[in-house]
């Protein structure tokens, strides 16, 4: 055993000669190594990876058991109903605070006021009853602190974040509290913000990625609020200080919020300070009811966003899949990781390493309070649009039609568990796990059991969730590129609707 000092360690892996020492979890995890990790000189015959991957199996690998510490944040509630999570971590002389305002998200915006949540969040820094925009900027920069807030489309929350050194924590947190609780939404500052936002509206249309996301979300979600990915000129023009003040007053409520703090703090010192700074914050618990679930498309459709001068086609295919509380979340993680989770996954190995179509091909899914999208995609040179789209669908069908080999499955699961375990070293990630558990009412021991749940996923599970949640016959296909060249190709994949880069349909 190494003579590693016990102590200054947040999450620690230790290696034991026997798995008996490590209890139940180690025994469950043994499933992951049912097949030896390292068999010198033997080719793994059950692998179904693309033929261009060559396994020499000569690298030296350790099979020791690792012990992982899953830190648990301290949980408390302030008198005003605000839930607080605190994770002590003294490795760095800094503190990060994140306030999740769970009723102030863009998902709750009225149809004609897209951008209201985001504008309110961004305006917090632009003036309080005590401080001007410039004073706030100077004071925070002097203190070396970062404070800001944002609201992303499709989300139920606004996230307010503040971070800085622990040595002047009191000073910067006081400013952050002022910004959060007493914004004045000055009209002149709002007008400036609106002008900047209008330029951004225009700028984002230069990006193929934005155009793809805009069309894809519309295609999947239709009129559901999750179909919105941007404000409009009209909705920005409609914003007034009164609307922002009202949104802030009604939706920034302590009872619907969770404050997560990580870093060089101790709960016993911090909690009284939070009472002092945030205690005056009042607000009733409001409904967090979200709109009815989106209705998945019943037929495949192809959307071409014509972007003249493009030298690549930006391809996205996908459909609505699962929400975060789905029983199938864990097998979906494994299935997606195997198909398109990184540079060792099937899409990358096929479209990049074998075909040379692209710099990268990946898949991903989003699971929130409502069923979100699963998607796969790649940016490919215009000439290979046909081949790339064909291979995307070939890989989707392959994972549905043929059962994944044991070796590939075991490696994928090992990679997922490993990724999870290493994330535990980063306090912000640990807090993230705790927040997810809270937000989705997952079991108290959800993350303790997470590796075991990953380990339990079978080849049948992978095939089952691929069959159930990937629906190639009804997938929406979005291609952003040079319309003249790719339209005939796209027509082979389904009925094509054409849009220009302003987002307008071209008949």
């Amino acid at each position: 055993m190494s003579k590693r000092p016990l102590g200054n360690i947040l999450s620690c892996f230790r290696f034991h000669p026997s798995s008996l020492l490590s209890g139940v979890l180690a025994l469950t995890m043994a499933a992951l190594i049912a097949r030896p990790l390292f068999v010198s000189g033997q080719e793994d015959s059950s692998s179904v990876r693309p033929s261009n991957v060559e396994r020499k199996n000569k690298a030296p690998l350790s099979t020791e058991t690792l012990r992982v510490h899953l830190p648990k944040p301290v949980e408390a509630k302030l008198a005003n109903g605000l839930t607080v999570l605190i994770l002590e971590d003294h490795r760095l002389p800094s503190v990060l605070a994140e306030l999740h305002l769970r009723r102030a998200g863009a998902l709750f915006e009225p149809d004609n006021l897209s951008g209201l949540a985001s504008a309110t969040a961004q305006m917090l820094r632009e003036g309080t009853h005590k401080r001007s925009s410039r004073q706030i900027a100077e004071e925070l920069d002097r203190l070396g602190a970062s404070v800001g807030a944002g609201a992303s489309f499709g989300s139920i929350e606004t996230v307010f974040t503040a971070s800085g050194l622990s040595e002047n924590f009191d000073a910067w947190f006081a400013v952050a509290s002022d910004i959060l609780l007493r914004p004045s939404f000055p009209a002149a500052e709002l007008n400036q913000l609106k002008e900047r936002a209008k330029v951004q509206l225009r700028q984002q249309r230069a990006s193929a990625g934005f155009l793809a996301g805009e069309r894809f979300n519309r295609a999947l979600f239709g009129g559901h609020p999750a179909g919105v990915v941007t404000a409009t000129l009209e909705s920005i023009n409609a914003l007034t200080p009164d609307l922002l003040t009202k949104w802030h007053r009604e939706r920034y409520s302590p009872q619907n919020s969770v404050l997560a703090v990580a870093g060089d703090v101790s709960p016993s010192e911090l909690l009284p300070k939070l009472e002092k700074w945030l205690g005056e914050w009042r607000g009733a618990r409001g409904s967090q009811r979200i709109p009815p679930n989106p209705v998945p498309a019943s037929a495949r459709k192809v959307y071409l966003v014509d972007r003249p001068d493009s030298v690549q086609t930006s391809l996205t295919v996908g459909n609505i899949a699962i929400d975060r509380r789905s029983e199938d979340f864990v097998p979906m993680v494994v299935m997606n990781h195997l198909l398109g989770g990184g540079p060792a996954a099937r899409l990358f190995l096929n479209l990049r390493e074998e075909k040379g179509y692209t710099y990268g091909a990946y898949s991903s899914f989003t699971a929130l309070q409502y069923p979100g999208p699963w998607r796969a995609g790649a940016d490919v040179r215009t000439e290979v649009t046909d081949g790339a789209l064909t291979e995307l669908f070939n890989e989707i069908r392959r994972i549905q039609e043929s059962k994944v080999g044991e070796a590939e499955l075991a490696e994928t699961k090992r990679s997922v568990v490993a990724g999870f375990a290493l994330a535990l070293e980063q306090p912000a990630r640990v807090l993230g796990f705790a927040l997810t558990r809270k937000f989705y009412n997952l079991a108290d021991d959800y993350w303790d059991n997470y590796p075991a749940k990953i380990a339990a996923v079978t080849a049948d599970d992978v095939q089952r969730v691929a069959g159930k949640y990937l629906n190639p016959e009804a997938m929406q296909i979005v291609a952003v590129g040079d319309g003249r060249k790719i339209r005939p190709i796209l027509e082979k994949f389904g009925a094509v609707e054409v849009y220009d880069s302003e987002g307008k349909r071209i008949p």
Partner: protein
Amino acid sequence: MELKVFYPQENPLQRARARLSGLVSFLLGCALALPQIAWSSETPVRQSGKPSVSFQEFTLKNGLRVILSEDHAAPTYSICVTYNVGSRDERPGRTGFAHLFEHMMFQGSANVGKGEHFILVLNNGGSANGTTNADRTNYFETLPANQLELGIFLEADRMRALDVTQANFDNQHHTVQEERRLNYDNRPYGRTAETVLDTAYDNFAYKHSTIGSMEDLNAARIDDARAFFRTYYAPNNATLSLVGDFQTETALALIKRYFESIPSQPSPPVPDMTEPEQTGERRKSLEDAFAQAPRIDIAYKIKQGNTPDWYALRMLGHIMAGDLSSHLYQKLVKELELVVSVSAAPDERRGTSLFRISLVVRPDKSLQEVERFVHEEIERLKKEPPADWELDKVRMKFRRQQAQELYSSLSRANALGHYAVYYNDPDLINTALDKIAQVTKADLQRVADTYLRESNRTVVTTVPKSKAATKG
């Protein structure tokens, strides 16, 4: 500008969350290799003191420089091999080659198959990547502590015996061309940076971009790759930095076992980096098919990195446009509402560097007016130094930034390699911060005076294509 062998995408677990915070970054797949895993009951204990990095240096018989920094704060380690070769070593007609070659380093070697490198690292809990810039190329992995031998083995195997085949070379050719299309040819302002380099520099070494031109990428031949490997990928042209949870003795023994028998090679040619003094302003305008708003890039030639003047310019750039209380942000974004964004900073090169100011101008505003304000601001800085609090805030900012960077074993390993290869001084990981902190008001005025002059300036304007057409 640095190019990667691939872009890590978000981890699905992270995606599944309702979005934590833009301020929190994380490394994908940075993970731990677990054949077996068990929870431990360790609790964190307070650590204090000024963050600093201690390390030991060794040189193997074949000339490989080894830097070991043992640290048991987390059960992981990072290995980084920095090769003393970058796009500045390329010859005319072969631009982009150093980076194309970097891709080949992931295509297999004597004991590692094509595609196996990523599989071995990711499936054992790690992350890996490689990057190329003008001055160096590096390769790195982060792995759990129990896979120490794996990282050392992987780096040694490809340094000893890379397997360069025609099929793999053709494949990576395509991949790199797609990388160029994705990041340069298919996005707004994609060619602006290349135009700035091409206009400002006279010496070929920095005049061309690291990604290179399509024509030159097409012209690359497999024989070039073999020769390049032999010349530059020798142990005596590399620095290995290892940071994290290991015993120095054990690690050194493993490094010797895997690396020491790799034969050294004659020293590679040293590129001529002389850059003639600029004697007059240079201007260029380009049209951009995708840009929606015009952009102005102003570049001044300055001294190389790690010089007192360079550190002073680093501070000056921050005061000019580094945060929301900076001069140009307050003036041009907030007060006058002329620009959408502004930045100002020196790039860090081993030879003549550039101090670059970049502004995205509102579509309805005048480029000339914006440029005039920038020049006025510079002239003012030559006469009136910034306030004390502004120097203090920059010191605070860099201190916090450094503390954050030192957190991860990977950024420490990369920084040690960077400072060793660039300046032959890995201890800059500890001392660079002091060099910024020591900058005075007089230094700021001096560097503004010395470098931010009209005759030393290159101005590139990028205008949306349609606009340019209607202007006629």
